[in-house]
C-alpha cells in the first residue's frame, strides 16, 4: 500500500510540475484535471471517501469545466477582437 501511495505522490508532483512547465494552457488544464483525479484516489487511500467524492465532483468536474469555459471565452473574445480589426 505504501508503494502505491508513493507512486501516486510522485504522479502528483509530476503533474504539479507539468502544469508549470507546459506551454499550452489547454494542456495545463488537462494536467490539472489529472492532478485532481489522482488526488481523489489519494483521498481514498487516506480512508476519506467523503473527500474523494467531493474532489472528483468539484475538483475534477466543476473546476475543470470552469477552466475550460474560461479558456473558450478568452478565445472567443480574441476572435471577435480580430474580426473587428479586419473590418476596420
Amino acid at each position, binding site marked *: 500500500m505504501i508503494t502505491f501511495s508513493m507512486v501516486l505522490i510522485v504522479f502528483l508532483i509530476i503533474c504539479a510540475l507539468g502544469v508549470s512547465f507546459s506551454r499550452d494552457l489547454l494542456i495545463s488544464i488537462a494536467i490539472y484535471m489529472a492532478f485532481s483525479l489522482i488526488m481523489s484516489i489519494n483521498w481514498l487511500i487516506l480512508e*476519506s*471517501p*467523503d473527500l*474523494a*467524492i*467531493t474532489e*472528483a*465532483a*468539484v475538483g475534477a*468536474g*466543476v473546476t475543470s*469545466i*470552469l477552466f475550460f*469555459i*474560461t479558456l*473558450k*471565452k478568452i*478565445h*472567443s*473574445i480574441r*476572435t*471577435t477582437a480580430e474580426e473587428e480589426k479586419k473590418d476596420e
Partner: protein
Amino acid sequence: MSKPNPNYKGSFWEHLAKWLRGEYDPVKGRLETKAVAKKTAGKEEMQSFDQSIQKIGKYDMRMFEEGIDRQVGRYRVVYRILSVVTVVFLISLLLWTVSYMPNFGDPNAPTNNEVSQRYIEKGMEEMGTVNIVTGMILGYRAFDTFGETCVLFVASCCVLFLLRVDREDDPQSAAVEEMNDRHFEPRNDTILQKVANFLVPLILIFGIYVVLNGHLSPGGGFSGGAIMASGAILYLTAYGFKKTHRFLNEKVVDAMKAGALILYSFAITYFLYTGANQLHSIFGPGTPGNILSAGLIVFLNIFVGVEVACTMYTFYTLFRRGGI
C-alpha cells in the same frame, strides 16, 4: 508683497513651493537609491517588492526594447536567485518542522484525543448520522458549515457583479455575448444529444441520491450539489440555452438559490439557538440508518445541495454568456 529675491530660482523655497503644487518630488533620485536599493530598477518610482518578484518569472524581451536598460536584466537574475533561495528555504523550513511532527498514521498522535473519540462513539447516538463526518460538519460544527455556504454565496455575488449582462438595460452587450457564445459551439450535435439523453437522468439521480444519503453514506450536500450541477451543465451543452430555458431560467434558479439559503439560515438559527439556550429541539436524532433520521441534518444537506447546484450552474452560465 516683498520684491522678488534674485536667488529664488533653485532655492529651498522654490522647491517647497513646487512640491506643494505637486510638481516636484523631493526624494526622487536620492532616497530610493540608498534606502531601497532594489527600487532603482524601472523608470516607475514605486516598483514594489511583489511586482519585482513577479518580473522574475519570465524574460520578457519587450521590456528591453521599451528602453529599460540592462540593469533590469541584472536585477532579474538577482531576483531569480533570490526567489530560488526563498523557495529552498521555505521547503527546508517546512520539512524540518514536519520531521518533528507525529508520524503519519500514528494511533498515539495528539490529534486522537477526546474530541474525535466523542465524535466516533457518541456521534451516531447524538446526531443520528451513520456517516460520522456528516454528523460532525452539520451537527457539532454546524456554524462553520454555514459560514462556508456563505463563502460560496459571496463568491457567486462577486462573479455576478463582474460578469452579469443586463439583457433589458443593455441589449447591445447582450448581443455581443450571444455572438461570442456561438463561436466554437457545435449546434445540435446528434452524438452529444444522444449521450446526454442517456447520461443526464443518471447523473441527476445519482446527485440526488448522494444528497439524500449524505448522513448514511459518503457524500452530502456539497458533492451531491456539484454532481447535479454537472448534469445540468451537460444538458445545457447538448441542447443549448433555448431548450433549457423552458424549465431552468434565471427566475427559477435565483428563487431556488435564495429559498434554499433562507431556509438554511432559519434552520441553522433554530439549531444554534436551541442548542445555546439548552432548549428542547423538536428535531431528534431518530433511528440511525433510516433515510428520515438525523433530525435537521437531512434538511440541511438538501438546502446545501440545492444552493451548491444552483451556484455552480450560475457560474457556468455567467462564464459562457453573462447570464442564464
